[in-house]
């Protein structure tokens, strides 16, 4: 039973990590129906910004709390700046073209960002300082769960709830829903669609940045490639949960995390990803729009 519980907790952490990135994917998709392949790269850039900020601040002699706050703020600011710039350069001019063009553009952006960081920084793994405080209450349970894991799990659920509230009850949320439903119509009734899309990218990128800082300080190392690996898994999770649905992204991520964890624990980690993708195919056969996605009937 202990073994089961430990695998369960491991899967929960893994799933929450995926969820932090998947939420950004699903947000952008929900509003403008674009698979933002470079979302993982925004997460990576957030983590790098935090690492650079933390190192510089550390040398300047700041305390750990200041470093955590400043690094987090800078990571968010820069991730948003990159997210918005990317939208303006690579996606906005393509709004009226075929569906595939923005996808290729996104793949191009993803390759570009990876190599940009690789060339400007380094190809080696860099140690990432553990910025998060260790919680004393958890000391006796250190063998099953760590403070950073608790932070990640709590943040994931907090972000999910906040986003749902934001979309349901605020003005910008209403504008987002309107844009998602029918962009032209929203424009006609006075919604500033450009602003809504920029906001979507800002929110998505901030989540990627928060995820970047939390996950990097949990794992303890980063390189230019982490965004791509995590991004693919987060994308899978978002689709599994029903892309465009916010609770779906979290549910899909958790299901994916548990699938991988239990497959490793009870079968073999050799085929961990095979199980993950196989499970995805299985779910989609029976629910073609994902776990919580709405099956849209096509109008004729």
């Amino acid at each position, binding site marked *: 039973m202990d073994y089961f519980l430990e695998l369960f907790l491991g899967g929960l952490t*893994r799933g929450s990590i995926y969820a932090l990135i998947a939420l950004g994917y699903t947000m952008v998709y929900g509003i403008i129906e674009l698979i933002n392949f470079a979302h993982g790269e925004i997460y990576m850039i957030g983590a790098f910004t935090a690492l650079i900020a933390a190192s510089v601040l550390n040398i300047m002699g700041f305390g750990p709390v200041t470093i955590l706050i400043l690094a987090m703020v800078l990571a968010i600011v820069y991730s948003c700046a990159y997210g918005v710039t990317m939208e303006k350069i690579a996606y906005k001019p393509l709004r009226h073209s075929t569906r595939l063009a923005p996808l290729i553009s996104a793949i191009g952006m993803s390759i570009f960002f990876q190599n940009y960081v690789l060339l400007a920084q380094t190809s080696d793994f860099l140690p990432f300082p553990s910025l998060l405080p260790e919680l004393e209450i958890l000391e006796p349970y250190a063998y099953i769960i760590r403070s950073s894991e608790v932070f990640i799990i709590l943040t994931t659920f907090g972000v999910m709830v906040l986003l749902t509230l934001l979309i349901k009850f605020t003005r910008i949320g209403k504008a987002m829903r309107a844009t998602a439903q029918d962009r032209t119509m929203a424009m006609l009734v006075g919604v500033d669609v450009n602003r809504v899309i920029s906001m979507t990218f800002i929110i998505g990128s901030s989540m990627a940045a928060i995820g970047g800082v939390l996950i990097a300080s949990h794992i303890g190392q980063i390189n230019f490639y982490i965004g791509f690996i995590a991004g693919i898994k987060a994308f899978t999770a978002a689709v599994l949960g029903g892309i465009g649905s916010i609770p779906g992204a979290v549910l899909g991520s958790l299901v994916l995390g548990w699938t991988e964890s239990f497959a490793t624990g009870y079968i073999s980690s050799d085929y961990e990803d095979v199980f993950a993708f196989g499970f995805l195919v299985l779910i989609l056969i029976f629910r073609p729009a994902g776990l919580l996605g709405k099956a849209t009937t096509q109008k004729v």
Partner: protein
Amino acid sequence: MARFKNAQSLKKGFVLTVAAVAFVALVVLPATSFAAKDAKAGPLKIGVGGAHSGDLASYGLPTVKAVELVVKAKNDAGGINGRMIELLTQDDACKPEMAVNAASKLVTDGAEAIIGHICSGATNAALGIYKDAKLVVISPSATNTDLTHSGNNPNFFRTIGSDYAQAKSIVDFSLKNLNAKNIAVIHDKGDYGKGLAELAKSLLEATPGVAVALFEGVTPGAVDYSAVVQKIKQSKADAVIFGGYHPEASKIVTQMRRRGMKIPFISDDGVKDDTFIKVAGKYAEGVYATGPKDTSKNPLTIKAIADHKRVYGEDPGAFFINAYAAAQALVNAIEKAGSTDFDKIVNALHNEPVETPLGNIKFDERGDAIGVGFSIYQVQNGVYVEME
């Protein structure tokens, strides 16, 4: 209409081409082959192939620098038998398909011997081209056992120990020094890590009274390895052998130690890296890793590193010493052979010892450098210390 005509003309073109191919293949081709390689004047061209771009560039670029240093020293001393040496470098980004292109580019550009390539897969792909072109290849870093042990590559030499030698020293150390009886073997599913783990597993299985508790691969880059760590715990292993590189190793060790698992962790050359100690921090203490025998006290090593610092202003990177030795061995062999004739160079590599930072080396009949092997290191107080 236009389309129909188009298909017609295409078809005509197709038939023509087939005819042409048949003609060319039967008549022209057998006559052409590589130009004879003798009677060459001008500079002696040495090719350097390896990963010079992409995420593995940090493994490939130090080799270029090492060869540059050796060649410069030789040229300053008047070249080989009066011929100046010129370097040709080609990037393969560690990919087999690019290695083939890089190799054929080097051959076309007139390289007469090769230092490289860096990754085993790329080296394996490129070797076919070099073999047909009758070029000697010395790799500073390709450790795949089959490259030398298969007997298919008479033109291949290396200045690094094979995976087999490394697996053997890991297993011997675990059994004799650590008295492990039930060992978990973990790898990163990669070319290097999995190959090594497979060899270690078969060596363990061949030893009576020793069991392999677990044999599993982890996905490199995955966000967490807690499930695998749980599994190691569950298997009641008394030691862990890991084949792979330091990013995965540090994640696994950290999670093991955090969960209170104190069993020894033995890994390979890919983990014997300062980044590992820095990333894993206090959890790195006590970890064992194999690495090339410590040659840092050899005066030639000290000189090579000092030269590197003087010319490039920084400490040398991975495989620098191996590449330095490879370049010296090649230059020496060409000099002793008195020409760039393939058989003569091969003969010289087998029989003419040369003084290098790795010691006084020559190559055995398979192509492995004699006397180049592995030692076991342990992390003690934040540094790797060579064990007796």
